[in-house]
């Protein structure tokens, strides 16, 4: 059973199909939100909001206009952009509770430490990008998403999506190169 069929069943009020849909799409949504530079707690809140909106508005989904996964990611993107615009006045602090609660003297494993440093480096760079640039970059790393689907999520033409993605990648490279 694919996600588009499950979403159509969800529109008819099928709660089992809805849970199956969440299970199938949750990794993509969390991956997308994480790559937008959102912390784990915020990503969880936005992902939960996204799926509840999917449930509420399932009858608005038109399978002729695109796949369910694209529609769901577009909802997640809009909620993430709203969050980023509200949070733009304050500095986003990554909420790594596990690390924060660990005793100071507990050494992190090399790999975990490296991942944490890489994540911090990417977060610092992403904060210097516009929310829409963060969104299109994150979408480009969602597995199985082609340029046409990215364009649907970003609500622009395929050509515009390609150009915006190129510009965002170049800007991120420059920012990372400067740090």
């Amino acid at each position, binding site marked *: 059973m694919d996600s588009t069929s499950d979403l159509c069943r969800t*529109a008819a009020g099928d709660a089992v199909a809805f849970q199956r849909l969440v299970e199938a799409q949750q990794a993509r949504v*969390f991956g997308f939100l994480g790559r937008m530079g959102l912390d784990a707690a915020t990503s969880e809140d936005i992902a939960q909001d996204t799926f509840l909106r999917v449930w509420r508005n399932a009858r608005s989904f038109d399978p002729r206009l695109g796949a369910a996964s694209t529609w769901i990611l577009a909802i997640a993107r809009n909620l993430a952009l709203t969050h980023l615009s509200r949070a733009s006045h304050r500095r986003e602090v990554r909420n790594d509770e596990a690390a924060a609660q660990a005793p100071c003297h507990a050494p992190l494993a090399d790999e975990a430490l490296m991942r944490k440093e890489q994540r911090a480096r990417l977060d610092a760079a992403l904060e210097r990008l516009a929310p829409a640039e963060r969104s299109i970059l*994150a979408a480009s*790393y969602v597995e199985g998403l082609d340029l046409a689907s990215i364009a649907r999520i970003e609500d622009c033409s395929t050509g515009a999506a390609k150009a915006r993605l190129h510009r965002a990648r170049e800007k991120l490279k420059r920012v990372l*190169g400067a740090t």
Partner: protein
Amino acid sequence: MADDLDRLFKTAAHEPPQGFAARVAALSRGVSQAPAPPPFSLWRLVPLAASAGLGALLVAEFALFAFVTAAAQ
């Protein structure tokens, strides 16, 4: 640098917490579904077509007036 970006983005994804789907499904039971939007109908285009027609008529009238004025001079 492209490899650097790919590597950085690979580490940036979050994992959904255990039981997330079941929790969301349970929450959805308290949320009612919105009704489907009304189907598209050609009648919805009538006001738009009427406005476009009136606009075109106005432009044509202005062009005719400008032409007659220019010809008279």
